[in-house]
């Protein structure tokens, strides 16, 4: 089983952080993982993507994928390139609070999570990506909540220590309010 997913958002590091947390969580759950973050253009404030491949065998594919088994979108801007790569059976998790328009025209399974709203209510709009990634992990059963929290603690750089608490809360909120296993990638139904 090799699960390729991408995350996308506008600027900032939060999408990359979310991707890294998911990657670390998968490693903690003993999977093989390849993760690559990319930033659009030489400029700041442009789009930012992350590609993740999670597998139970050594990963052979490069972290530049042509087809996606899953996608996470913080915002509709810059989602287009991801949409084009979605497989028919892909899992798509979007940030309902900001995302406008159609996420998946091909009949893919779409889950809309009010991530920014949830995060704002928790007092930290920046943690929206935590909510979303936790929801994704929960829906797809890609990683456990404990691993996500542990992964987050590994991933936060020293100069951002003040965010540990709020991030953990956001991860928990995201995970606990999502439809667990609704599109598991490991189960017969979700896997390919």
């Amino acid at each position, binding site marked *: 089983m090799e699960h390729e997913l991408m995350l996308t958002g506008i600027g900032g590091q939060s999408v990359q952080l979310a991707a890294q947390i998911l990657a670390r969580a998968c490693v903690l759950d003993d999977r*093989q*993982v390849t*993760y690559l973050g990319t930033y659009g253009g030489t400029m700041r404030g442009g789009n930012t993507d992350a590609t993740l491949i999670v597998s139970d065998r050594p990963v*052979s594919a*490069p972290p*530049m*994928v042509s087809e996606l088994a899953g996608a996470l979108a913080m915002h509709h801007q810059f989602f287009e390139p991801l949409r084009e790569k979605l497989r028919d059976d892909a899992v798509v998790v979007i940030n309902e609070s900001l995302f406008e328009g159609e996420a998946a025209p091909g009949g893919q399974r779409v889950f809309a999570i009010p991530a920014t709203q949830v995060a704002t209510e928790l007092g930290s709009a920046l943690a929206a990506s935590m909510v979303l990634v936790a929801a994704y992990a929960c829906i797809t059963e890609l990683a456990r909540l404990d691993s996500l929290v542990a992964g987050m603690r*590994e991933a936060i750089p020293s100069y951002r220590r003040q965010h540990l608490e709020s991030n953990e809360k956001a991860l928990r909120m995201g995970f606990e309010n999502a439809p667990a296993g609704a599109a598991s990638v490991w189960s017969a139904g979700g896997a390919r």
Partner: protein
Amino acid sequence: MTRSLLMGSEALAEASVLAGCRFFAGYPMTPFTELLENFAVKLPGAGGVCINAESEIEAVGMAWGASSTGARAATGSTGQGLALMQEALSEITRAELPLVVFNMARGQGDYYQATRGGGHGDYRHVVLAPADLPEATDLIQLAFDLADRWRNPVLLYGDYLLAHTHEAVDIQPLDFEPLPGKDWALDGSLGGSGRSRSVNPLGMEKGSKRIDPEGLWKRLQAKHEEIERREVRSQSEFTEDADVVVVAFGSVARTVRHVVAKLREEGRRVGYVRPITLWPFPLAAVAEAAQGARQVAVLEQNAGQMIDDVRIAVAGSAPVRAIGGISTDPSSFGIGSLLEPANVRERILCALEDREIPR
């Protein structure tokens, strides 16, 4: 060590320190920056030094100085910063100093730079081109060994994918043959004895006005020919009965390997040769793979550079065709669509089916 998720740059710095690297200097440039950051974090704890140099030219100078004392030293940049280092790199080669140089390149357009250099005169660097991170953490250890063994710079050709991809790796120290002592390394101790040391790229020797650059350069040439005989490395798969042999290196080869394996599963007669050393280039491996092939297809992410070496290797025994091309993203960091499996697959199919390559 145990398996942990490391960014490529972090793993490379880690493996370098493990290999005994004790000096690093560099200047930020994407996608090299994180390598510098990681050396800055790791070296002090290992009793080493990392300097955030004020420019690439100063960085390579610092590494040169460090190496002249016998320390295992490294520097690097992306191809653009390496362009600035060309004068130093050719001169360091003539000074016969070991040095490891990282090119965290933006794509594969620096193949010429890496294998032919832009420095002056005749000089060669061993160039190692890992396809993925686990291989890279081995090759970087090899790089430090080869640099000392041959007293010659060794370049590791990486790219954005190698530098920025996180993978769960488990870095193991490698064993190498014992090395000769560094009796040439400067420590000042022989001053006043009439036998003080001199690290010199011009053919000058202490106590003599006579300069013999021709002798020095010929000695280097002989050494480089020896390296050509002894240090060639490559990987070939499925070439015996292949209609089409694909030649690719580095990150592109990673995709090629992935795609060719799938195509073989589908019964297509395709194989590949992956040069691991770009210099010395695996002429024999490519020549052998070309025997009997209908076509040799070169898939590189540039306007056509390695194809020169492939043509030299194949020497007319099969048609050589370029199926790669320039491919980058708006940042020009080198992460173009050519690195994606679907595009690589399509190009290889074009070669197999004698179709035009999409431009």
